[in-house]
């Protein structure tokens, strides 16, 4: 988190993400999930405004997946009250609610991940150090978070290398061959990169000298505690929404 001074401690940001994603998995109620989605978008604007357009683009990429879930649920789920019927074909309420819930959950997870998108290893070390978790764990988490963008970048780069050789990916067989090769290369490169990182860490003597001081260690501030209070309040409101009887 190098560009600007963060509003909250990295630990608080991680906590917000865990809170949002856990509630998204716990609740099935569409109203609660929609509220969580709105909270998620607001948090993203507040904590990582620079990444909003990129993250929203990722959410757009999810739309075909969400639509296909809708399609299969509507086609195969035939229990519960009927919302719409034409001839022998009917759309049932549970199919619609379940697919909407899955769609909202996916969007919440992607948007929530965006909140901690710009945290780097020192931020994770700072956050994990606050609750005395080992820095190996901080490294693993920061590496995994950086892994997906690395893979998608590698995928795009290999496509560009193939294109600039003048290869025309016409025909199903050629496309499948190219796709297989790109996937294989991305996996092989990722594994090679991972072992390279492990060697680099060993060469730097990672955790070989026992306990040492942490650069830029900081505690929670008043603003962080206010956020925890707000999260507790929101949790109560969401619980109340979920149990409130609705027609």
């Amino acid at each position, binding site marked *: 988190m190098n560009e600007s001074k963060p509003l909250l401690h990295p630990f608080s940001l991680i906590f917000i993400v865990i809170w949002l994603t856990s509630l998204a998995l716990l609740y099935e109620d569409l109203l609660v999930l929609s509220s969580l989605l709105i909270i998620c978008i607001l948090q993203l604007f507040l904590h990582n405004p620079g990444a909003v357009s990129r993250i929203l683009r990722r959410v757009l990429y999810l739309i075909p997946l969400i639509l296909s879930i809708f399609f299969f649920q509507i086609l195969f789920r035939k229990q519960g009250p009927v919302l719409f019927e034409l001839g022998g074909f009917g759309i049932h309420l549970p199919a619609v609610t379940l697919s909407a819930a899955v769609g909202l959950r996916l969007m919440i997870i992607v948007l929530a991940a965006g909140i901690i998108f710009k945290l780097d290893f020192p931020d994770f070390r700072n956050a994990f150090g606050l609750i005395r978790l080992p820095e190996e764990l901080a490294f693993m988490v920061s590496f995994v978070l950086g892994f997906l963008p690395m893979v998608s970048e590698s995928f795009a*780069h*290999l496509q*560009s*290398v*193939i*294109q*600039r*050789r*003048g*290869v*025309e990916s016409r025909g199903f067989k*050629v496309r499948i*061959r*190219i796709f297989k*090769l*790109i996937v*294989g*290369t991305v996996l*092989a*490169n990722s594994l*090679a990169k991972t072992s390279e990182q492990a060697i680099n860490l060993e060469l730097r003597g990672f955790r070989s000298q026992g306990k040492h001081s942490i650069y830029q260690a900081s505690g929670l501030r008043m603003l962080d505690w206010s956020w925890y209070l707000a999260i507790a309040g929101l949790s109560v409101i969401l619980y109340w929404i979920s149990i409130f009887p609705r027609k």
Partner: protein
Amino acid sequence: MYRIDGLAFSYKQSRELFAGLSIRQQGAILLCGENGCGKSTLLKLLAGLLHPLAGRISYDSQDLEQLGSKLYRQIFYLEQDAEQNLVGITPKDDIGIWKLALRLPDTLDVLSEIGLGYCSEQQISLMSQGEKKLLALGATPWLMDRLWLLDEPLSGLDKDKKAWFIELLRAKIARNPDCIVCSHERELLIPLFDEIWHLENGRIAIQSLK
């Protein structure tokens, strides 16, 4: 043949390169300049991998934006970092991809031609920098009719392999002189080229060699 008119480019939060550069490429060009002067960026712009902030780049009178991927059937671009040019887990995979674009002989023959016949099944990530560079140049004997944009083609190669590639470049220029090669090995390459482009402070000084 490339034509550049009023080119300007800058990376995010970085100084502007090529303030209004206009130039026309004809024949074999050796691109020289100090580190960071924008040689590789210029080649990337010519290869259509970067987009100018202002100005126009055209190839055979057609705008690069309009040409799109058709450009890649007429040029061969080599990135400075050899690994960035390679696809696949082994050299065999990489040559296999070239075969989708070119009529090449048997994969092992291609690899033997560049002296890599012994490592057709080896992982690319475990190969040396020189071997990766050779592999990246592997299809060049079959790309003589394309315009070459080469970024440091000699770096990482040993003396014999440099001599092999210089001979190949000589044959290419004799057959089709269109190429822009960026290299710090000026003394080795000067005899082959028609012009040297000295890139400094966003401007190009042309030195004719013929």
